[in-house]
């Protein structure tokens, strides 16, 4: 035909088309790296799982927009367990056998993690848990890792500060869920090391809405300080209830106090509370030379910009998990389960939100006491505690 597209245009078109096909062919040549995630997005642990899921999605999108790892994009498959271990089990098996993922990020709670620890180990699938129990990485299972800091280190920080303040009779109140009970065990175990006596130790129901009863008990025993180890809603109530019944002693909280909302819930009563936490909460007050500052500020800005809510340390655990995984894949140069696992154990000086990770074959957590900073609340905002 002599009408229609002139010859040279046709050639250009053909070239363009073939380049397009070649491009998509080369993209198809590199299959995506499949990563599974098992979070408690809804249910009683949703304050953990919801930010974790959002963080993971944000992280993956950022990596994919930058071209992926070694030219391969990441495909993230998120499952919501509702905080139920049996759902975690079922979904984990699904991810391992059906979706054939390289690694699983999460779960959000210790109970769920312990339920799937063996499944991941036998399925030779890397597990990067965002839950805090020590038993997750002790005893060490070669494929199982965790990213939150150690409960025992948090307890040590609290006691160290108490000792410096000269307080040695303390009352401990904890919630009766896994987190609270783990904290209780650590606090009771380590008290003696710092010369502190736990005068009274009580566990309350995690949905408790009024702590004046148990605090009156503490008041009656003349404690010099109160340690509360729980999550919402109780941690928002303790400070208030203490002031209301006139218990005017220092209050220490756990690292579960990781969101400014909890301070706001207690209003002015929260001022002066002391707690160990990841530095994310005071990122803007860190000196510029601090190794974590850049990572923290970027994460905070991205998260708050994208989701219009305050960043919390819980989402940070998912960030660290994804970070460690992608660093290991980069180092291993492949998505082979065994190679990535081996690479994970050799990671050192990876700057995450919880701290600077230093993994090894014996330590599948990689964080020490310096991952925490002792924070306080001043005028309704988080601030580093200066003695």
């Amino acid at each position, binding site marked *: 035909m002599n009408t229609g597209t002139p010859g040279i245009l046709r050639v250009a078109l053909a070239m363009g088309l073939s380049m397009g096909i070649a491009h998509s062919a080369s993209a198809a040549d590199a299959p995506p790296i499949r990563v599974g995630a098992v979070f408690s997005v809804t249910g009683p642990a949703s304050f953990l799982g919801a930010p974790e899921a959002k963080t993971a999605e944000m992280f993956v999108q950022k990596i994919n927009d930058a071209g992926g790892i070694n030219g391969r994009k990441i495909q993230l498959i998120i499952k919501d367990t509702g905080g139920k271990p049996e759902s975690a089990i079922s979904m984990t098996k699904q991810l391992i056998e059906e979706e054939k993922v390289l690694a699983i990020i999460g779960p959000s709670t210790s109970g769920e993690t312990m339920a799937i620890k063996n499944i991941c180990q036998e399925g030779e699938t890397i597990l990067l848990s965002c839950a805090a129990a020590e038993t997750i990485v002790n005893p060490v299972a070669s494929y199982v890792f965790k990213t939150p800091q150690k409960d025992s280190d948090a307890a040590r920080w609290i006691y160290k500060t108490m000792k410096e303040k000269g307080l040695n009779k303390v009352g401990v109140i904890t919630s009766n869920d896994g987190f609270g009970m783990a904290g209780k065990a650590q606090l009771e175990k380590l008290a003696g090391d710092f010369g502190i006596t736990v005068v009274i130790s009580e566990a309350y*129901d995690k949905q408790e809405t009024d702590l004046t009863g148990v605090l009156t008990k503490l008041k009656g025993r003349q404690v010099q300080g109160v340690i509360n180890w729980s999550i*919402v*809603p109780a941690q928002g109530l303790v400070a208030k209830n203490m002031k209301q019944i006139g218990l005017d002693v220092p209050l220490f909280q756990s690292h579960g106090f990781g969101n400014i909302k909890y301070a706001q819930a207690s209003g002015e009563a929260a001022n002066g509370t002391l707690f160990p936490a990841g530095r994310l909460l005071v990122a803007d007050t860190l000196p510029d030379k601090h190794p974590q500052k850049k990572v923290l500020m970027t994460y905070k800005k991205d998260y708050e910009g994208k989701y219009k809510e305050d960043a919390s340390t819980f989402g940070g655990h998912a960030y660290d998990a994804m970070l460690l995984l992608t660093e290991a894949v980069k180092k291993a140069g492949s998505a082979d389960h065994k190679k990535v696992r081996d690479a994970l154990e050799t990671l050192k000086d990876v700057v995450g939100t919880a701290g600077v990770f230093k993994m090894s074959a014996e330590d599948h957590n990689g964080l020490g006491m310096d991952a925490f900073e002792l924070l306080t609340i001043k005028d309704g905002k988080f601030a580093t505690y200066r003695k």
Partner: protein
Amino acid sequence: MDFTQVLQYCLAGITVGSVYAIVAIGFNIIYSATGIINFAQGEFLIVGAMTAVSLHHYMPLPMAVLLAVAITAVLGGLVELVFIRRVRDASVLRLIVITIGVSILLREGMLHVWDEQVRGLPYFTGTSLSTIGLMGARISPQVLWVLGVCTVIVTALTLFFKLTLTGRAMRACADDRMAARLCGIKDSRMVTLSFMLSAAIGALAGCVISPLTQTQYDMGAPLAIKGFTVAILGGLGNSMAAVVAGLLLGLLETLAVSQLPVAYKEVVSIVVLLLVLIFRPSGLFARRETSALRA
């Protein structure tokens, strides 16, 4: 334990007990009118408080609370119209199961409208630091608000049922529905009204307790269970007894805290529930009609 400690516990006990009493009264109003145990009662408190929190962004606190109460009352009426009215001649069991479904629906609805975060109304007077001394015991001024509001609710309801025409009509329906109908009282309207009333007082109680306990979308169910225990303890349908029973349960719980490990606080109310069901299901202040419950 010295006197101030006992007083402190007692004050905590009657604070929480009066909230239980309000929930129980809500149960009783609906039970009297329809024979149904409305498991969604707890959710009304939470919906009321959450709505008030949201409205407070746009208007001053008193208005927010009043509007929230009104909205929740409408919601209560809707629940009745949509779910309960359709089911004629249904067994009581079926209706109870429906209200369980409604409570789930409301709870999940709240989750998706408001998300899982904990919220609270600001203190009606003062702040989280304010504390009032009362013969050595220290309480937040909000506690006085709770006691005051609950007393007002109970008084208002008593007057309503005794003196107003509508109130007396509702009582007539509760006593004998057929007879009330014969007198020209539209019993279906009374049923809707009973739901609206229960929802309204629930919402008010939810608002007044919110500064003390904070509000989260799933707090409705535990409250409903405690309220139900109180209602049974006092005798289903007997609102005055519910008040006494509520204060009793509240005191029992807080005094248990002083002696036992705190973790067993919840067990107290459940054990009370089981004991009452097994040994005296018509309640402590049984009226003769309710003893006909024995099969």
